[in-house]
């Protein structure tokens, strides 16, 4: 039987892949998908703690975080569409209206 620390290490690895993706990619949609990946990694941590302690509260938390992730994806993609309509690009290095 796999211990909980392997699950935690896997979720840490996925989280860090998400961090690297957010830092090196320039496409706003891919950055957004990397954020989803990081959310998923944290969900894995919550589920593994929940089932190893035999306590259902962690899984309820994951359920709520799924709903919040859905809201975030909807609003974020709407913002990306609005940006694309103004700039004709989703490259974040070309979006510099409010950058000094």
């Amino acid at each position, binding site marked *: *039987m*796999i*211990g*909980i*620390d392997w*699950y*935690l290490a*896997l979720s840490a*690895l*996925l*989280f*860090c*892949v*998400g*961090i*690297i*993706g957010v*830092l*090196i*990619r*320039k*496409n706003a*949609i*891919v950055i*957004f*998908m*990397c954020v*989803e*990946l990081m959310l*998923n990694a944290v*969900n*894995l941590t919550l*589920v*593994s703690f929940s*089932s*190893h*302690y*035999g306590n*259902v509260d962690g*899984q*309820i938390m*994951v*359920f*709520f975080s*799924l*709903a919040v*992730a*859905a*809201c*975030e*994806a*909807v*609003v974020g*993609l*709407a*913002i*990306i*569409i609005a940006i694309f*309509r103004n700039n004709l690009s*989703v490259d974040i290095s070309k979006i510099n209206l409010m950058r000094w």
Partner: protein
Amino acid sequence: MITYLFIFLAVLAVASALAMVINKNTVNSALFLVLNMVSLAGLFLLLKAQFLAVIQILVYAGAIMVLFLFVIMLLNVQDEESLFSKFRIKYFVAFLLGVVVFSQILYSIGSFSGTLPTVAPEMTEVGTVEAIGDVLYSEYLLPFHIIAMLLTAAMNGALMLAQHKVRTEDNK
């Protein structure tokens, strides 16, 4: 058997996450993210969280990723240049930062390794739809309703943000 399944799913999850990050085609990245979510759903099944495994596939791999693919194909995003085409100092710094955060988390896991729980005997009953629904509709009823309002608000906000204003001469 469970050990081999865990290794298989973990390697699949990490490989698809890496492929998502380094792929230059956005559609391929989204499809690799779907693969990553399916393997995470498999890991949830190994952890006896059946309800969340189903929800993960339905909501994430189904709904959210379809939304992503719709937006990608709607916006007609061009391929980026390959990440390996030329070396940038930014990539090195990002990789270093990722490794630092990873080793930090591993260090904190390792120092708590003795106090972490072993497998709970009642683990099999925790993740069923019955057990989750029981707690969700009694103890967490108020957060559940607040989530419903949040979803409605997000839907209205997305409609407001993405609605198309026709640009005519007098309305610029």
